[in-house]
């Protein structure tokens, strides 16, 4: 990285802050009392967070979101990695067709399956359950495609050496392919987690019980419950919004480079 004019650095920082001003201000607002906010005074309170967490069940929603996104990520990555390994390393009848069908899912808009998936899960008695939230999100054609491309880049000689030593396919996958695919797997895991964390339309139709709301549904309901505009408790809503944003934001800042690399690899290549 080249050293740069400090004035330019300051200006860029200011431009970035201005761009993010709505969100930054919403975080600031979440620490204001409602009275002070509407009177235009400055205050400080943690009361909004306390109310969001206790009175409005946001602790519960947070746990639900973590469970759902966590399981979708673990199961989605497992399923995608298994398939990617087969697509990358085996030639078998129907293999190309199945790989084609996997890639083609990228072109299929999810809304075509909204009503049918609702009916499938209703028939299975899985509406209003964690399983109902998780199952339709597990298959991820993009992750399978991406990992297959990555695994093809790993020298086959490594697999062959292991097979010579008597390793099984699963051992080769687990001991050789997975460790060497770590960057690709972690960026896909993050991608799946963020996508699922922010998923809105599916939990909206699949869940009616408040106990199973994810953060997205809880936040939308909290905001929508307020009847007229003048009556919205904005500082409370912003505390809930901050709770909804924060976990992903922290994760993103920790691994920004991985994620950006994953996204551009997928899009440009």
């Amino acid at each position, binding site marked *: 990285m*080249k050293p*740069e004019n400090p004035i330019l650095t300051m*200006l*860029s*920082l200011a431009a*970035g*802050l201005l*761009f*993010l001003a709505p*969100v930054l201000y*919403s975080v600031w607002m979440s620490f204001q009392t409602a009275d002070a*906010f*509407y009177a235009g005074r400055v205050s400080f309170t943690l009361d909004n967070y306390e109310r969001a967490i206790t009175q409005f069940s946001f602790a519960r929603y947070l746990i639900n979101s973590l469970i759902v996104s966590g399981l979708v990520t673990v199961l989605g990555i*497992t399923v995608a990695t*298994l*398939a990617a*390994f*087969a697509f990358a390393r085996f030639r*078998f009848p129907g*293999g190309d067709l*199945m790989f084609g069908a996997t890639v083609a*899912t990228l*072109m*299929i*808009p999810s*809304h*075509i*399956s*909204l*009503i*049918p*998936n*609702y009916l499938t899960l209703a028939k299975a008695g899985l509406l209003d359950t964690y399983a109902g939230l998780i*199952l*339709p999100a597990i*298959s991820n054609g993009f992750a*399978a495609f991406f990992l297959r491309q990555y695994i093809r880049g790993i020298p086959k000689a490594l697999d062959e050496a292991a097979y010579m030593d008597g390793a099984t*396919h699963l051992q080769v996958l687990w001991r050789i392919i997975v460790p060497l695919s770590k960057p690709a797997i972690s960026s896909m895991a993050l991608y799946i987690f*963020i996508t699922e*964390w*922010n998923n*809105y339309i599916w939990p*909206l*139709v699949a869940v009616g019980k408040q106990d199973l709301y994810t*953060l997205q549904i809880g*936040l*939308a309901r909290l905001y929508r419950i307020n009847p007229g*505009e003048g009556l*919205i408790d*904005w500082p409370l809503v*912003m505390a809930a919004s901050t709770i909804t944003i924060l976990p*992903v*934001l922290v994760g*993103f800042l920790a691994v*920004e480079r991985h994620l*950006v690399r994953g*996204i*551009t690899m997928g*899009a*440009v290549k």
Partner: protein
Amino acid sequence: MLRKLTPYFFVAPLMIFIAVFTYVPILTSLNLSLRQWNFLTPDMPFVGLRNYEELFASADFWNSLWVTTLFAVFSVPLRLGAALAIASWLVRETLPARLLRGALFLPSVTSTVSIAVVFSWVFSTDYGMVNAVLATLGLGRPQWLQDPHLALWVLILVNTWKQIGYDIVIYIAGLQAIPQELYDAAAVDGGRRFHVFRRVTMPLVMPTTYFLLVISVIEAFQVFTIVNVMTRGGPAGATDMLVNLLYEIGFELFDIGRGSALAVILFVLLVALAILKSRIIGRKVHYEA
């Protein structure tokens, strides 16, 4: 024998999930779109193309298609134009460029519901950030989200704000792929900056532009969350985009037949666009060779 089956064991879980939740639903939708059903009645009579006819005869459908088209026509060039301009400045590997890139990318991984809620406040008539500034300047207090002439523009702006970081990242990757020699040659020829941009940069990022163009049009046709949270399709249908209409018909009116017909129409539209996209990616490979 078992050896030959090995790869099938590995792909089976993915194939089962894709079949159950992606491919079979396409057929289910097609089937349901030819029937009349409301979730409750025991039988679902076959009604032929009546659901499609009803949709094509309804003002709601055409309004929705029009609103969605408007959204795409205005938001896509705005996103891409601004993204290319910003990307060509931020492509440099310097500290300020990296900071700004991070800030611009952040909204694209942030919860859309949160963004919709925050911007509902930003554009709220009485307490919003925008009207606070306008009022200070003596420019009045427009009712952004309650005014049929303004609400769609607010949604376009919010969507642009959320997505532009992604476009910028993709453009930067495209710009970095342009060989430095071309710029050196242009510099030797004494090309001015704007000229170089138009004659060297623009044509060479064209494949990236095509790619972003098609995915952002596809995205525009799938916008739902900001509509559902910020306007519910209102005021007076002014922001009633296609997926929102699908949600209303299917899950508020429980008209499964008509909802499925709309889903099928949307599907055909988007798959046509997606095929266009894969053609374009094919051309890009050709372009680089």
